Each structure stands twice: as structure tokens, then as C-alpha cells.
């Protein structure tokens, strides 16, 4: 059976490039977008499923950080990265109404897009995005599409129209089976995402990316964003590098410091 695989990815603000304004608020406009960490695992899992079972891998994504006009090129670059990793094509939603994003709106948009495309056999997502870490979108999508949901999978395999997965939960691993179609979220343990070669990166430029507005996919209910502000946590550290004549001297100084801090 040729599988129609959808992989959900997010162009996340890169937390490694955290920027703040003078007043301590997050300066999101100064932060670049990047393919979210666990979404790379999702793309890798999708491509591996296709390699084993045949079929196609389609990227679905919603731009959630604005301003839309300025972010569009960056967004496309992120999508191209997923294509370079082996996905076949991409369908993206870009609309001012979905910026800044909210997991509820994003899930509604993805569900409407999936329906407009005729549905998929399996939807694969990362367990959470690296910027907002909400972890809601795949479960919300499953509820909207009325499909079974397998969350936090650390391995998946498909046989006889069903999916088997090992779910990585607090304290235990659960082995489950569900019929297709199905929505799955994956953890970072599921695989090691491939790094695309130069040729794959170049080939990705010829793969189709189709863009939609909210109106194109017939979405009418969009939730209001709920965030009033994002404040960067500033922890003052002393940043003292301990120096000395030799290693014994440095070790003695650090031992003094540590001994002084020990709870009585």
C-alpha cells in the first residue's frame, strides 16, 4: 500500500538566538526562524516510512510569526530544509489572521488544509515546538479530524493498514496499535535526523511549495492570540573565571568556594 504521509512542521523562533529589547521583552523580530528541533525527527520518521512502505511525504505548515511579508522568504527556506531532507512537496498557509500563532488556530488551519487536500493516511508531528513548547497541535488535529492519536512515539512501524508504536511516557513505555489513518507525535529519541547533502538541497528548490490563505482553505473560525507579552528571564551570574599559578592553586580556590556554599 502506497502511504500518503503528511508531516507537520513549524518554522520556530530559534531559542539559540534569543534576543531581548532594553525593557526585557523578547525581541522576536530580531530572531531568525528555523525548522523546529523535534520536527526534524518527524520529517526523518516520515521519509523512513516512505522508504520502507512506498508512497509520498507532504509537508504541511502554517506561518505563525510575522510580519508576514518580511518572514515569507525565511519561512520558505525552512520548508525547503524539510524538502531537502526528503519530503516530496509542501503545502503552506500564510495569512495575517494566523499571526502571531495560537495552537488552537494552527490546528484548525492544518485540519482545514488536510481536508482540502483529500486527507492523508498518517500525520506525523514533533512532540512540541522548540519556541512555544505547547505540545498541543497534533492532539488537537487528531480531535478535529476525528482520528486516533498516538502521542510521544519513540518508534513506529506500519503493517496491514495499522500502525504500531512505542510511546515514551513518564516512567514507562507503552506499546500500542491503531488503525490508519492516524495522527502521531514523535520524540527526539525516534531517530537521528539526516543532514541533507548539497545536491539534495539544490534539488529541493525544484520541489513544489503551494501557498494558501485562510480563505483558500475555507477556514472561518480563528482564535485570538492570548499572549500579552514575552519576557526574557535574566539571571545574573558572576561569570568569574578562576585563575591561579597552577592547577593545585586553582583547585584549592574552587574548593574554598564550594566548601563555603555547602549547606550546613
Amino acid at each position, binding site marked *: 500500500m502506497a502511504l500518503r504521509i503528511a508531516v507537520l512542521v513549524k518554522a520556530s523562533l530559534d*531559542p*539559540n538566538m*534569543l534576543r531581548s529589547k532594553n525593557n526585557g521583552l*523578547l525581541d522576536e523580530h530580531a530572531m531568525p526562524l528555523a525548522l523546529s528541533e523535534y520536527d526534524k525527527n518527524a520529517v526523518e520518521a516520515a521519509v523512513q516510512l516512505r522508504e520502507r512502505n512506498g508512497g509520498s511525504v507532504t509537508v504541511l505548515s502554517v506561518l505563525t510569526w510575522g510580519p508576514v511579508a518580511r518572514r515569507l522568504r525565511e519561512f520558505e527556506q525552512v520548508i525547503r530544509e524539510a524538502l531537502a531532507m526528503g519530503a516530496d512537496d509542501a503545502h503552506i498557509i500564510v495569512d495575517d489572521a494566523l499571526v502571531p500563532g495560537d495552537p*488552537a488556530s494552527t*490546528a484548525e488551519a492544518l485540519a482545514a488544509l488536510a481536508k482540502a487536500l483529500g486527507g492523508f493516511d498518517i500525520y506525523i508531528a514533533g512532540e512540541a515546538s*522548540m*519556541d*512555544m*513548547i*505547547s*505540545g*498541543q497541535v497534533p*492532539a*488537537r*488535529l*487528531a*480531535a*478535529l479530524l476525528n482520528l*486516533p*492519536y*498516538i*502521542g*510521544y512515539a519513540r518508534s513506529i512501524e506500519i503493517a496491514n493498514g495499522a500502525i504500531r508504536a512505542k510511546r515514551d*511516557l*513518564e*516512567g*514507562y*513505555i*507503552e*506499546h*500500542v*496499535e*491503531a488503525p490508519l489513518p492516524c495522527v502521531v507525535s514523535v520524540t*527526539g529519541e525516534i531517530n537521528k535526523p539526516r543532514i541533507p547533502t548539497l545536491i539534495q538541497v539544490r534539488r529541493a528548490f525544484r520541489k513544489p511549495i503551494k501557498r494558501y490563505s485562510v480563505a483558500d482553505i475555507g477556514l472561518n473560525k480563528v482564535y485570538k492570540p492570548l*499572549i*500579552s507579552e*514575552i*519576557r526574557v*528571564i535574566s*539571571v545574573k*551570574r*558572576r*561569570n*568569574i*573565571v*578562576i585563575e591561579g599559578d597552577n*592547577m593545585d592553586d*586553582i*583547585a*584549592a580556590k*574552587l*574548593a*574554598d*568556594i*564550594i*566548601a563555603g*556554599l*555547602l*549547606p550546613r
Partner: protein
Amino acid sequence: MKRGWLMRMLGFTYNEEGLGELAGLAAALGLEAYALAVGSRDSVADYSYSVFKRIYYAPRMSTDQAFAVISDLYDKIKPDMIVAPSLKDNTTVLAMLASNKKLAMFTEAFGIVLMEGKIRAKRRVMGGRAEAYYEASTPIALTIARGYYAPPASSEKGAGLEEVKPPASKLTILSVEVKEKGSVDLESASIVVGVGRGFRRKEDLRLAEQLASLLNGVVGASRPIVADYGWLSEDRWIGISGKKIKPKIYIAIGISGAPQHMAAVMDAETIVAINKDKNAPVFQYADYGVVADLYKFVPKLIEKLREKLGGR
């Protein structure tokens, strides 16, 4: 608590202990509380805090079964808040409910403030390095961050229990494998020694163990040590997806300082970093740094501490 309005909470949890957190929240915020818990009658009864008007329970439920049951309870109870402790499957069930009932949801929320018809809360974002402030009208779904709401002071039990019968599930649970549990408790340790890729062999971790035991501390690790090399069990993993710690002293040895790791140690009172690369990001997060080869430095540090602490 006296005010002209009352909020009703429907709690949910897969682990019975989670009822303690939910009861703590209900008591702290003066909520009319109901809950659905997964567990046997006896185990749920142990946590049947009297702040709950009623606790519904079922011995076993897959996430889609719990979703169906809580949807029915939502329609019956009409809560203003649907709340769960932060557990993976709790998040799943609440997100499915929120989606189905067209509700907003915050995960790992804390600093919860209620107003008439409204709720404010905060949550950590950007790899734990920033806080987002949320405001939404009720009804709303939220999971609460661990460690913010303790069980209520009054441990009086005896809330009414009612068993629910979940519908058939689309998911088949084939088997369950309990993860190997180590004996360390990183989250409450006051001294933690963290080990990273600077260690070349598993056997060498004994240096960190020696240092930790001298200080009555425990050893934790960055992701590669646990996930890539498998040198330590998963309960030792310090990171945004692993354990978040708040010790008095955190000593990072051979750890470069990836944001996902450092975000999980931000609440440490003092951070000490030992790394041979003077440009390692870990030094930006450290109070005290030593640029040295850990293989040469750590034995000397142990020796000096031993002299100082006198055979502890």
C-alpha cells in the same frame, strides 16, 4: 475566599497523586472542584481530598477513552477551567478536549490569577529562557507546571467517588514496559554534578561520582551521555525534555552548555563550570568557571575538598 463569583474546576489526571496538586490548586484559588482520575477505587480514595465535590474514576483508559469521558463530564458539569498536572497523556487528553469544545489552552502554566470570566497565567517558552504572559476568557483548559501547587494543608479525605465506564477505544494497548528507575532524585538534590561529552569513557564518570558523594550530591548528565552513549539511565538526564533541577550548587563538568541543557539548570543558586574549551557557552551561564582538562583538574579538586571537609 469571598467574592461575587465562583469558578468551577474539572480536574483530570492519569496519576492518582496528581489529585493532590489539583486539590492544592482548588484550595488556593477557592474553586468548586470536580475531578476525573485514572485508577482503582482504592488508589483514588487515598487522594480523595474533601475539597472535591466528586471524583469520577475508571481503572484504565486510553487517551481517546479519557477524551470521550471528559467530554461528557464537561457537558454535564460546565466547568470554567479544565485543569491537569503536566503529564504527557494529561496534555493529550486536555488538548483533544480543548479542540473539540473550541477552548484555548495553556500547558505548564503557573502564576495563575483568576478574575471574573478571565484567567491570567504564565508559562516558560523559548527553551525555558523566557516567560510568556497569557490572558484568556473562560472556559479554558490548562496543565499546571510541576512543583507550583502542593496538596492542601488539610489532608481531610472522603470526597464522593463515582466510577465511569469508558466507551470502546480505537487504540489497542499491546503491552507496558516499566522503565528502569534509578535511585537518584535530581529534582530535589541540593548538590548536582553534571557530566557531559568531555568524558571520554563510561568508566571515567566515577570521577564525577566521587566528587558528588564527597559533597553529598548526585550525578546528572547532558543529553548525549544518556541518549547517544547510554552511559547513564534516563532519569539522570538534565534538560528541557529531561529533568529540570534547582540545586544550591550545580557543577557542570565537560558540558559545553547547549541551551536545552542550561535552561533546565537556570534555577540553580550557583553554577560552577569546568571545561577545557575557554569559549564553551557554559561559561556564560556560570558563576565560577575553570578552564582546564577535567581529567587533570577534577582529581585535584576532589583532593582539596577532601582536605577541607575532613574525610566527609
